[in-house]
């Protein structure tokens, strides 16, 4: 076969490049198509690689926490000797102080499979899926508060949209002052920290700096009482009919390595999971 001329090869290169650009732009313009293609890729070609990454994540976290776990096991063994007496005493003290029982919300722990792309913190690939009971719109939380919500569920993996995603919204209210609003990622960023905004606060209401903002439970996606952020100040209003507050987020999705996916009803408040239940 005679060798192809440079011009033919050059045309072919240009055509291939143009085809790649067109396909990329089509996926950007039609997210439904893009999601369909990405779902097929995720459930087929990437399965063995994601399994390897899952093992690597599990190995890293288990190695890092081995010493801590051993120390905790020793302490737990020691403490278990006094468990029946402690439980009875705890129950008696809780009833004396009129405290309710601890919440038992069904959940599954998951590893976060971080990727190398710069937009990694806006979504999280989780190591559990529908087989473990995860559903679309299952809330994802960390030890400090709300991280996001599950958007796509595969058999053994799921994708969560974090609060840093431009499409993220959550109904929330400011504790102590009881002001409601909608939380979303802030467009502007100060320093190195991604911030949140509490929007839609009525002009007549105001929220002091330092107030904790938690999910309100409205909308039925997030249970009430999950910490979202702490008020850092007031942003400039453009519309004139609302107040906008800037929040420091309490949980950082980009740094999260393990999360909890809530599987149960979103009706009961989770406030007691995040705050000490002792009376000051």
């Amino acid at each position, binding site marked *: 076969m005679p060798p192809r001329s440079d011009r033919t090869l050059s045309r072919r290169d240009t055509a291939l490049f143009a085809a790649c650009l067109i396909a990329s732009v089509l*996926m950007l313009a039609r997210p439904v198509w893009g999601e369909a293609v990405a779902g097929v890729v995720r459930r087929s070609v990437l399965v063995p690689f994601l399994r*390897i990454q899952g093992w690597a994540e599990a190995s890293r976290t288990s190695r890092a926490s081995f010493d801590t776990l051993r120390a905790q096991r020793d302490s737990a063994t020691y403490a278990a000797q006094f468990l029946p007496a402690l439980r009875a005493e705890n129950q008696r003290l809780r009833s004396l102080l009129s405290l309710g029982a601890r919440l038992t919300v069904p959940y599954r722990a998951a590893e976060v499979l971080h990727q190398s*792309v710069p937009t990694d913190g806006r979504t999280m690939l989780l190591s559990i899926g529908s087989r473990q009971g995860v559903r679309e719109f299952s809330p994802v939380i960390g030890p400090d508060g709300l991280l996001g919500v599950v958007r796509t569920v595969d058999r053994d993996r799921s994708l969560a949209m974090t609060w840093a995603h431009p499409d993220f919204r959550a109904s929330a209210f400011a504790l102590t002052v009881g002001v409601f609003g909608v939380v979303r990622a802030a467009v502007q960023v100060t320093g190195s920290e991604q911030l949140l905004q509490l929007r839609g606060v009525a002009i007549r209401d105001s929220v002091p700096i330092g107030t904790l903002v938690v999910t309100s439970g409205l909308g039925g996606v997030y249970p009430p009482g999950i910490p979202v952020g702490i008020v850092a100040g007031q942003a400039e209003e453009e519309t004139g009919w609302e107040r906008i507050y800037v929040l420091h987020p309490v949980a950082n999705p980009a740094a999260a390595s393990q999360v909890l996916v809530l599987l149960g009803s979103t009706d009961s408040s989770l406030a007691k999971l995040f705050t000490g239940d002792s009376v000051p």
Partner: protein
Amino acid sequence: MIAIRAERGRLWSVLGLLVVLQFALRPRLGIPSVAPDFLMVALLLFAIRSRPGAAAVAGFLVGLAGDAMSPARIGAGALAHSVVGYLAAWGRAVFFPDNLFVNGLVIMLGVWLRNAIQLLASGSGPGSLARELFVWAPLQALTTALTATLVMVLFQRWLDIRIEG
């Protein structure tokens, strides 16, 4: 013919190793936004040895895989990687001499450009964009370029790279 096949086989072995490292080693390397991107190393090593069309297709596939795993905006990764793959192959054919330092520099610029295009296509705000482009992207580009340099030194004969200043 046999020599060319052996050469290609060696190149694909290195690329395969980099893909495995991306999933097996990278999660253990600490901060995800700074850890080296082995897939970008593989893509750019392939691109600077290929025709621009093949490099664009390889970039599209790598980007699509990234979009499938971290879909802030599906298509942004495919677009960014296609452009970077095409430009690396085209630039290699037109400008770049084949030596270690220049290859490392191309990889560093490639990672930074990939991050820039992907962030722009994903609709990042100006503040977030500035922070990513001037803090995290250079750090990731640097670690990736250093990793690529190490790979090129270790596999210089397989990759047919001359060690020069």
